[in-house]
């Protein structure tokens, strides 16, 4: 491969990495807020992709327009997942960690089964969307417009999240609750409400990711699995709970993965990502940007 081909690999890795970051940030947010790993995260992504597909097929809304609708719907799904499942799982006093894991894992299995039952296991994709088939050619490097759009949305979402976390009361309540749940209760913040909204926000972010992914990726009841695995690595790499660590780690994972696939036999492309992950685990167990 020549220099131009390498440039292409890096550019594609960067675009995909920004999407990985966007997929992972909701997971990181929820973990940072209440130390719960949401094993249904990939299924949230899948639901969002089906929502975008449904809006496109039945309401003829392009995924670009449908994005806020999908995010809003996923906010509801996330809030409901907390209020309906996770909140009850947290009540158990014994073996809390396990109960949380199994509760969200069970939720994942349920969503996946329901999706296969309701939507059939066929692979869907959005045909005839605005961004389909357009590719920008920047000096021999091909940037598919759907992926450029996805990367832009990712950057904007992180920007918006930054403003939300630093400039609003809700953001400050979120930050305060994650630091000391007991203390915020004393100043009159209902931690249950913050958790519900936090789950909603986390799911809405993965909803944004699903809506942009739907513009160029196939949709399937199991589609969440391959992205969820990368999301877990991304969150651990960036630092559990670190929102912007997820962005940086997503980009790193995207580029390392693409680079490994170009250097080694592509069957081993996950190797680079996991080696990096292991190295971080040994040298900096809290992750690149984690506080812990």
């Amino acid at each position, binding site marked *: *491969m020549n220099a131009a081909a390498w440039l*292409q690999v890096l550019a594609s890795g960067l675009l995909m990495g920004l999407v*990985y970051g966007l997929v992972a940030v909701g997971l990181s947010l929820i973990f940072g807020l209440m130390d719960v790993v949401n094993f249904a995260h990939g299924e949230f992504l899948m639901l969002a992709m089906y929502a975008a597909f449904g809006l496109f097929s039945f309401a003829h809304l392009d995924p670009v327009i449908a994005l806020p609708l999908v995010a809003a719907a996923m906010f509801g799904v996330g809030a409901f997942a907390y209020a309906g499942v996770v909140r009850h799982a947290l009540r158990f006093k014994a073996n809390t960690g396990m109960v949380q894991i199994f509760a969200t894992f069970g939720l994942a299995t349920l969503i996946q089964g329901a999706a296969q039952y309701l939507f059939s*296991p066929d692979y869907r994709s959005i045909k005839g969307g605005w961004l389909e088939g357009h590719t920008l050619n920047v000096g021999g490097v091909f940037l*598919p417009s759907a992926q450029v759009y996805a990367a832009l949305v990712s950057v904007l979402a992180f920007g918006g999240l930054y403003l939300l976390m630093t400039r609003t009361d809700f953001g400050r309540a979120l930050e305060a609750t994650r630091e000391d749940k007991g203390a915020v209760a004393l100043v009159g913040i209902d931690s249950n409400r913050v958790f519900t909204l936090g789950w909603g926000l986390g799911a809405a972010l993965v909803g944004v990711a699903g809506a942009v992914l739907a513009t160029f990726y196939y949709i399937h009841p199991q589609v969440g699995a391959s992205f969820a695995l990368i999301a877990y690595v991304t969150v651990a790499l960036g630092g559990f709970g670190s929102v912007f660590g997820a962005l940086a780690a997503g980009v790193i994972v995207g580029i390392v993965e693409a680079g490994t696939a170009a250097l080694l036999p*592509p069957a081993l492309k996950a190797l680079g990502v996991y080696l990096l992950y292991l190295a971080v685990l040994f040298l900096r167990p809290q992750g690149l940007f984690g506080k812990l």
Partner: protein
Amino acid sequence: MINRRDTLIGLAGLAGALTAARAQGGEVVIGAIYPMTGPTAQVGTDAKHAFDTALEVINTAVSLELPTAKNAGLAGLGGAKVRIVYADHQADPQKGRAEAERLITQEKVAAIVGCFHSSVSTTVSATCERYGVPFVCADSSSPSLHRRNLKFFFRTAAHDEMFSEAMFNFLDAQKAKGQKIASVGLFYEDTIFGSDSSNVQRKLAQERGYKVACDIKYRNSSPSLTAEVQQIKSASPDVLMPSSYTTDAILLVKTMAELGYKPKSIIAQAAGFVEKPTLDAVGDRLGGMITRASFSVDLGEKRASAHAINEKFKARAGRDLNDQTSRQFTALIVLADAIDRARSTDGQKVRDALAATDIPGDKTIMPWSRVKFGADGQNTFASPVLIQYVGNRFVTVYPFEVAAGAAQWPMNG
């Protein structure tokens, strides 16, 4: 007074008697192990439609020139009906092995058909061998499957050596016509299907003097194939030969388009490339693609039963029979015919009946000359065809005797 122990003994005796009676009067139970959930669940769903179509032929009287069609149920077993018990392997060889064991010991199946993924057929057939239960491999094409000296393994369809040989015969013929074909590019997924397929293709390429421009083994169901496609693009082979399941097939074609790469020609090892979801999603970029096949709808013009069965299948599944579903249908018919002739559900007797199978090609829906197994359980008469995707449908282009027309070559000139 009846105590609990007597009741249990009575129930156990009753259950045993029922199992014995089931084969004679009522029904023959056959296990089908397919991916019913997981990334390839759609294959399992379609397989169920194919088997339901076969059950209609077997269990009701149908006037078609197919074995077991004429009368309702299996005549050799007093009109016994065939019932299928499904098990889900989720593309996992270990789950397949466990399910085979369960079907044999708990459900008392007379035989098992399966399993789409070659990797799963490997473990399931080994389990069947251990219990002395016949395994009819419907749609796994790895050549290594029939080379393990298994006595209970039978494969009705062609394997990848036969398929790949047809591909290279076709390439040689194109070259003889003056086409410039110097190199091939191998692109294959990282389980036994992909590696077996590529091993054969690599060997054939070397023997017949084609340069292997790229040899890419990739991780299946990856979120991205950009770097992989970049390598194909850099190598720019005259013929791209992918061995991929549906998810990767869709992603591969999309990524090639995104990177502005038009492969000169594609000859695919079927699998994902003949699945309707792939053609729905990226079919507009696959015009001119050639794939190996065991079946093509245009063959229905030559075999009346193929046309009729396709209609029955389409009414259930909402799509035409393809490479996979036609093989699944045929495997179950061949198995039912053997059980019918064995007049028994005993593993050894069904095995012997399968080994004695000799069905002429015109009594099948396939383009094969006949169904007759070699000592290794492989049907040596399952002649493969190559089909080309032109104008949203497949037409047969090879062998030339059965071709509907000349192949469009190269795919992207």
